[in-house]
């Protein structure tokens, strides 16, 4: 087993000892969310600013069925993944028509469409108040209501997601996506159907977002309207970048830093998004490349010094 995996396993076991269980759980949920975005942003070179679309709609769909029809937890998770993937297929089909700046703007605009739909469709989503009362059913006869039990379940799903993502990244599809990132024209000249490959990456990313969305709904027992809002989309971009996009473990570190940062400033001041905005600007202006790259640079510097 490689060193990053050992590190992550250690973190999974140690985190609940030091951090509140809810926050610890949130970190891994956010990491799953970030893994999905990283496939788009880091490996395919597609900057999606609308990942909350899939996160939120999966949370709403699964939350609704859990609340009113009491569906099985595995069905809820599968449904969330499916909703994320299908939503991403629809949105992605429109967005991959354009590239560069337009792609970013389209993902954002469609995110806004979903947001306003959720905002106005109050009978289902509760509008601004959110959708409270999402239950957390037991899994395989195990009660996952205690925070630590739910933490364990989420951590397990996270490890599974990480493993799946690693398989995807190292698969032929993953290599094609990276070739698109590095040189789109060349990938096309080699005979790959670039828009279709991009769409595939988008759908996979949406599926991961969907899974994260359902887990989030069950963690807090509510789907807030913010879960589908563009600030959420921006947060996951920030988390992925801060960790270092394009490396498998980047979003994991990023979500760790981001949740820790936002939780600690949130308790300081009600207007914490202001501080968050300042943090974005500072990181962008002074710490480009993220934690993973800073770490790598530190090591090369140390080896060079020897």
């Amino acid at each position, binding site marked *: 087993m490689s060193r990053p995996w050992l590190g992550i396993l250690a973190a999974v076991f140690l985190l609940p000892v030091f951090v509140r269980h809810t926050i610890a759980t949130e970190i891994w949920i956010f990491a799953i969310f970030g893994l999905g975005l990283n496939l788009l*942003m880091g490996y395919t070179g597609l*900057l999606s*600013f609308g990942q909350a679309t899939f996160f939120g709609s999966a949370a709403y769909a699964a939350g609704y069925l859990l609340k009113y029809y009491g569906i099985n937890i595995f069905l809820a998770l599968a449904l969330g993944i499916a909703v994320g993937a299908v939503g991403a297929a629809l949105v992605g089909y*429109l967005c991959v*028509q*354009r590239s*560069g*700046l*337009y792609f*970013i*703007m*389209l993902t*954002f*605009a*469609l995110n*806004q*469409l979903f947001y*306003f*739909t959720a905002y*106005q469709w109050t009978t289902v989503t509760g509008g601004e108040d959110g959708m409270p009362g999402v239950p957390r059913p037991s899994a395989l006869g195990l009660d996952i209501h205690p925070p630590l039990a739910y933490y364990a379940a989420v951590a397990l799903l996270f490890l599974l997601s990480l493993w799946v993502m690693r398989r995807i990244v190292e698969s032929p599809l993953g290599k094609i996506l990276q070739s698109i990132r590095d040189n789109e024209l060349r990938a096309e000249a080699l005979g790959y159907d670039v828009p279709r490959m991009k769409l595939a990456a988008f759908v996979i990313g949406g599926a991961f977002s969907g899974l994260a969305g359902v887990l989030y709904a069950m963690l807090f027992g509510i789907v807030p309207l913010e879960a589908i809002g*563009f*600030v959420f989309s*921006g947060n996951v*971009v*920030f988390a992925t*970048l801060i960790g270092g*996009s394009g490396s498998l473990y980047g979003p994991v570190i990023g979500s760790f830093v981001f949740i820790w940062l936002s939780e600690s400033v949130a308790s300081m001041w009600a*207007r914490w*998004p*202001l501080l*968050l*905005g*300042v*943090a*974005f*600007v500072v*990181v*962008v*202006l002074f710490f*480009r490349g993220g934690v993973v790259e800073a770490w790598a640079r530190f090591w090369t510097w140390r080896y060079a010094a020897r």
Partner: protein
Amino acid sequence: MLYALMGIGLSIITGVLNIPNFAHGALFALGAYFLFTLIQLLGNFWLALLLAPLGVGLLGALIEYAGIRPLYKAGHDYQLLLTFGLSLIVTEGIIVVWSPVGMSQLPPPLLRGGVDLGITFYPKYRLFVMAAAALLVLGAWLFLEKTRYGAIMRAGIEDKEMVSLLGIDIHRLFTAAFALGCVLAGVAGALTAPIRGLNPWMGVDMLGIAFVVVALAGLGNLLGSIVAGLLLGVAQSLVALVWPEASVAVIFAVMAAVLLARPQGLFGIR
């Protein structure tokens, strides 16, 4: 018309600077709040309407100089994060300074009440906004098409390297273009304030709409932005008559339809 105004401003920024400006909506809101405060300070609507957008433009120039300039080579992801961070700062800053509660602003006495158009009764202020926005759009268009500075800006959209080879200071061009875009956003915000009132998040849906306008129009296509802005405005008002809840959704429906039929946008070449 307001959509066209926002669209042109964003189109200039997107076209010349090649960055995603996620702060455009927040600057729109800031225009409205500047107007509100200036009216309270000066007691004069017209002066406030003139100064508020200039204030936004000045801030825009500062943002470009200090924030965006180091990032032209850094890739869209970092530019996006910066402008997104700025939009958070501006929005939350508005809350800190002006409180999160929405406020309303009356139009100036001259423009209160309505006029009888024969077929329907129409508020005077809305007529004024339409006329003012139309004039501004026309003015912006004339500026870009007929003046030397406008020509430089359009050249900057086409080919930045060539422009700088011709001895034009490209950095000054970038700052000017960003500031101009911000002024247009500020005007749109200031004009909107008496119609829809003020709240700190008023720019968010405007931002989405401005992006749609630019995406529909095609890369840096200014005439396209005007047409797309008008198209969206008309579509939205017509749908609002029959099905008010869908009036936001229709914007994105129009966008989806256009992109499926013409992926390069209405007037896009590339």
